[in-house]
């Protein structure tokens, strides 16, 4: 079985320099493929050379977002405390845990969505390609272009299907083949077949599952690198849920996905790594255990994790 050392995050010293990384690519690739094959039984994914791969000692996929001792406050209330986790490139990282443990809050710190709520504060570091996302000179708008988001409730704009997908590229002043981009985005969101004859109709006329896939198409049309998904299937029927999960498995070839889910089967089925969070006495969420999904579900280290994944609490 997995002999992952379960590091909550790779210490920064582990990362090689970019120059060295270039030469190490082949090696890294193989190592990463092997590691993935062993850890999740899923087909290996291609690693992009440009994405600064990092040859970790444990030969895992390189980390793209790294949370270092992150705490988040609503006013004086600490919603999550001292979170240190790693989000690895081209993997699906699932955040699970009982209601109110701060999964969504944590997710929304990653693309600075919480900036929009007055009176909130982040402590610790969130690094994205080694850049501190909360440094004063970082533009939160640019952060959200690179780290897209899909919300719990499908929220298409009250515009046509086409305009929904084209909205982000137009914001960025996209000059190329917009029709082609809309088509490929809808294609990748597995929605093109359903809507190709009615691109001009309102996005709100679609069914719930289709709306959520439209939101995914809208998110990927801006070519983000990371997609955050906040319980994207909680309002969907099982069939639509399965479609979204299949879609996620395809999307991770190109993107990195972090998903918050209440559904443990979903985490077990669809994710590569799982972060289990719980609420402490002071109602602040913290990470109980994090690691490859197979390990969390079959051989958890922590009794609490075992109780949770086996359905004994939460």
């Amino acid at each position, binding site marked *: 079985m997995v002999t992952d050392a379960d590091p909550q995050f790779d210490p920064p010293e582990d990362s090689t320099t970019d120059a060295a990384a270039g030469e190490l690519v082949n090696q890294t690739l193989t190592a990463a493929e092997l590691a993935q094959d062993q850890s999740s039984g899923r087909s290996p994914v291609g690693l992009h050379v440009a994405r600064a791969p990092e040859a970790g000692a444990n030969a895992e996929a390189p980390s793209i977002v790294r949370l270092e001792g992150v705490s988040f406050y609503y006013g004086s209330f600490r919603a999550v405390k001292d979170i240190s986790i790693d989000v690895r490139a081209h993997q699906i990282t699932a955040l699970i845990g009982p209601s109110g443990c701060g999964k969504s809050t944590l997710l929304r710190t990653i693309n600075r969505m919480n900036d929009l709520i007055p009176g909130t504060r982040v402590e610790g570091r969130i690094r994205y390609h080694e850049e501190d996302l909360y440094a004063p000179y970082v533009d939160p708008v640019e952060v959200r272009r690179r780290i897209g988001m899909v919300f719990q409730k499908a929220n298409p704009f*009250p515009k046509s299907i086409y305009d929904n997908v084209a*909205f982000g590229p137009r914001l960025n002043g996209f000059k190329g083949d917009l029709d082609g981009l809309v088509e490929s985005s809808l294609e990748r969101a597995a929605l093109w077949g359903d809507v190709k004859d009615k691109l001009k109709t309102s996005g709100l006329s679609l069914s719930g599952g289709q709306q959520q896939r439209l939101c995914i198409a809208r998110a990927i049309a801006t070519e983000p690198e990371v997609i955050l998904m906040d319980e994207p299937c909680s309002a969907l029927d099982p069939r639509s849920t399965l479609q979204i999960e299949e879609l996620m498995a395809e999307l991770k070839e190109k993107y990195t996905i972090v998903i918050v889910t209440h559904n443990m089967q979903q985490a077990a089925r669809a994710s590569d790594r799982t972060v289990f969070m719980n609420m402490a006495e002071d109602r602040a969420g913290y990470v109980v255990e994090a690691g490859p999904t197979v390990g969390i579900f079959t051989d958890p280290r922590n009794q609490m994790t075992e109780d949770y994944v086996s359905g004994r609490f939460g």
Partner: protein
Amino acid sequence: MSNSQAITVGVVQGSLRRRRVDVAGTVFAAALLLSLLFTLAVLAILVGDQMTRGLPVLAERGTDFFSASLSSRPAQAGIAQGLIGTAMLTAMVALLAFPIGILTAIYLEEYAPNTGLTRFIAINIRNLAGVPSVVYGLLGLAVFVALFRALGVGTGRNILSGGLTLAVLVLPLVIITSAEAIRAVPNTIREAGYGIGASRWQVVRQLVLPSAVPGILTGTVLALARALGETAPLILAGAVLGSFSTGGSLGDLFGGPYTALPVIVYDWARKPQEEFRALTSAAILVLLAVTIIANGFAIFLRNRYDRRW
């Protein structure tokens, strides 16, 4: 077995057939209907009364009533100056109060930090909407009339003073209704916009405002309808009671004496000659028609831009 079954059936039937008259419910429904009928009756009597008196004048005078100037002789008196005045006042309110009011509402809803000061300002804007209009008239007299007199624009009792006074009067109304329309836009839309990397300006301009347009339009046109009917502030801000002659020049139009439809109604209603009663009713009918057209325009705009969520 069959015995117990029979008892059960009997009990069920007994309770099912116990239908009685719901006295309180019926009384309540009747009260609701009576209230509605009372309102409609008052309106019908009012309009009917004015119509029986005013329609003959409109029929007899025809377009002359609309094109003639004010006069102390009932047979020649017309409302042309009032129509021009009301049209110009409406335009000034639309040009001044709408942009300032809508921009203020956007600032309060989308940009202002949620501090005690912001809430204090918001509450006071609501209070301003409740201030009697005659108080705004005093403001117009003390500020705008004095200002234009100091600037040498005639006596200062001109349509600019009147328009500014009405604009200030409806400003709180425009702000409140626009702010409510903006607040009614679901937050999920804003989140969706920010989530794909839109800036605040882009979210406001491309997502929030288009969705709020129907509500904003409705509110602003209703504010306009309110301004159309105001009399007291205009009289204080220098609208002329009685007749005057209008010069043709642009300077006279903006700097000379002015009046408006509701002011004419007020003036004529006080005149001793019996003939002015009918003229007053005719002017009221015109004012009502203008207001109904404004409201109809608001409904048209709302339906046209309405979006379903």
